[in-house]
C-alpha cells in the first residue's frame, strides 16, 4: 500500500472523520484544516508505532502535510 494511504488509514484509526481524510491531498496542510493538536499528537504516536521511528521535537514542527510525513518516514518510498 502506498505510504500516503497507510497514513490516511492511521488518521482514521485515531478518530479523524473518514470523510475528511478521504478529501485530504498529499500537499494539504493538516493543522487546523484536518487535525487539531490532539489528533496531531495521536497521529505522531501512531506513525512512530507503525514505522518504528522517532519523530524529534524539532521535526514535529515542520511536518505539515502527508507528503512531509511520507518523506520523513521513508524518503525513497512513494
Amino acid at each position, binding site marked *: 500500500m502506498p505510504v500516503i494511504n497507510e497514513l490516511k488509514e492511521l488518521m482514521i484509526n485515531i478518530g479523524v472523520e473518514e470523510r475528511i481524510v478521504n478529501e485530504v491531498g498529499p500537499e494539504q496542510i493538516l493543522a487546523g484544516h484536518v487535525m487539531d493538536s490532539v489528533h496531531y499528537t495521536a497521529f505522531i504516536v501512531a506513525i*512512530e508505532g507503525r514505522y518504528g521511528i522517532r519523530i524529534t521535537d524539532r521535526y514535529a514542527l515542520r511536518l505539515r502535510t502527508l507528503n512531509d510525513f511520507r518523506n520523513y518516514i521513508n524518503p525513497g518510498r512513494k
Partner: protein
Amino acid sequence: MLKTSVSNSALELLTGNLGLHPDKIAYICADKALSYSDLNKGCRRFAHLLQKQGIVPQERVLIALPDCLAFPIVFLGCLLTGGVAVAVSPTLSEEELALIIDDCGARILVSLGKPAVPYYAVDEKVKVIICDDQGQVEGSCTSVELDTLYQQPSVDDIAYMLYSSGSTGRPKGVPHLHKSLLLPCDLVGKALLDIKSDDVIFSTSKFSFAYGLINSLAFPLRFGATAILHPGKPDPLAVLNIIHLHGPSIFFSVPDIFTQIILSCTDRELILPMRLCCSAGEALPAPIFEEWQRLTGLEILDGIGSTEMAYHFISNVPGRAVAGSAGQLVPGYRARLVDDYGNDVPAGREGNLLICGPTKTPCYWNLPELSAGTILPDGFVKTGDIFLERDGFYYYRGRCDDMIKSGACWVSPFIVEDALRSHPAVAECAVAVVTVGTFNRPGAFVVLIPGTKQSPALAQELMSHIMERLPDYMCPVRIRFMAELPRTSTGKIQRFKLREQFAH
C-alpha cells in the same frame, strides 16, 4: 470593629477611562464593538438588574458566558454590587455545572440563550438570567445612576472566583480579592509588558481562566486599550484571521496554539502585526520558541502563573526572553525551591516551587484542609510544579503530583482511569504523562482481564471507548499493555515509574 474599605476593582477599571476616552472602543467581538461609555452603561444596567433580584454583598453569581461583549458587562456589573462573580466555561458538562452550583451556592446563573448551558443541571432554586451577546436582558431598565449601585468592599471581601480542576477531578473554587484584578496590571502589564492605551490585545485563553481574565478584562480596561474577543474554539485559522483582520499589538496564547499556527504556515515566513507574543498555561518548549522566532522574527515571552496566584509570578521580559525558560521572578513575588521536607535546595538543583505574593488566594472555597495544606502559614503557596533555577531564570521540570497539563488544560489521571475501567476488557489501569513532539498528553497503561488477548485492534477499541466519554484533550494518545502495574509495598501505583517507561 469596622473593617478597612478598599477600592472596588470594577469601579476603578470602568471610571478611569470615562473621562479620558468615553467613545473609544474597549472591546471588539466579530463585527460588534463596545465603547468604554457603553461598557459603563451596560455594567450599571446589569448591576441594577442584580439588585432588583435582591443580591447582597458577597453573594455568588455564576457567569457561564463565552468570550463575548456580554462577559465584561455581567462580570463587572456583579462586582459593582459587591457580589462575587464566579466565571465558568459555558461548555461545562452537566455534572461539572451541578457540582459548581452546589459548591458556590449561587442563586443566580447568567447565560446566553444560545448556546445555553445545560439547564437540567440547574437546581430549580437557581434563577437563570438569559442575556444576549451584548449583555442585554429583556425587560431590564435602560439608564441607571452609578451612585445608587456601587458597593465599597471591605479589605477581605471576595471579588471573583474561578474553578480549577482538582486532582480528584472535582473542581475546586479559587476566590480572589479585588486587588487581584488590579495588581497584575501594575506588576506585569505595566512593569514588564509596558501596555499602553494604543495597544490592541488578543488572548486566545478565555475569561473563565485566570490567564484569560487578566489578559482580556483587567489589562485593556486598566490601560484604556482595546481587546479583541473570540467566543469560538481558538483553531489556528480562526486565530490567524482575527490577527490579520484586527492587527493586535499583543497576543496572549498557549503553546498548543503557537504550534498549530506554525504547522498551518505554508510560507517560509509569517508577517504578523504584534509587538509582543506571550505564552502561558503550560511550559513553552524551546523548539516552539525557536521555530516561531524563525518564522515571525518575534520572541515568545513564556511565563508561569496559577489560578491560586491570579496571574504570572514568573515571566520572561521583552528583548531578554530565554528559550525553554519560564523567565524570571516578577518583582513583587518571592519564590522558594524546596525538597520534599521543605528545605531550600541549592541553585541549579530541582525543587518544589513555593510562591508568595500579593495576589494569592485567601483559601480554596469550602476546602479548609486543602487550603491549609497548600497555603502555608508563612504565606507561601505550594504550586505543585518542580522547577530549577539558574542565573535567576526558572526552568520547568514537571509536576510533583499526578496531574497532567494537556493542551493547557488540567487532566486528572483518575478521570481517565475511570473511563478506561468502564471497558469490560480492562482489569486495572494507570494514566501518566507522555511527551510527543512538543506536546504533553495522557498515556495509559492497561492490565487486561485474564483470558483477554492484547492487540492493536483492542488498543484502538479502548481509545474509541474513551473518546466517546471524555473531551479530546483527556484521551490517551498511547496505550501500553502490561502484565501488572508497578506498585509500592502498600499497593500504591508508582506513577513515576510509568512516566519513565513512556520516556523510553
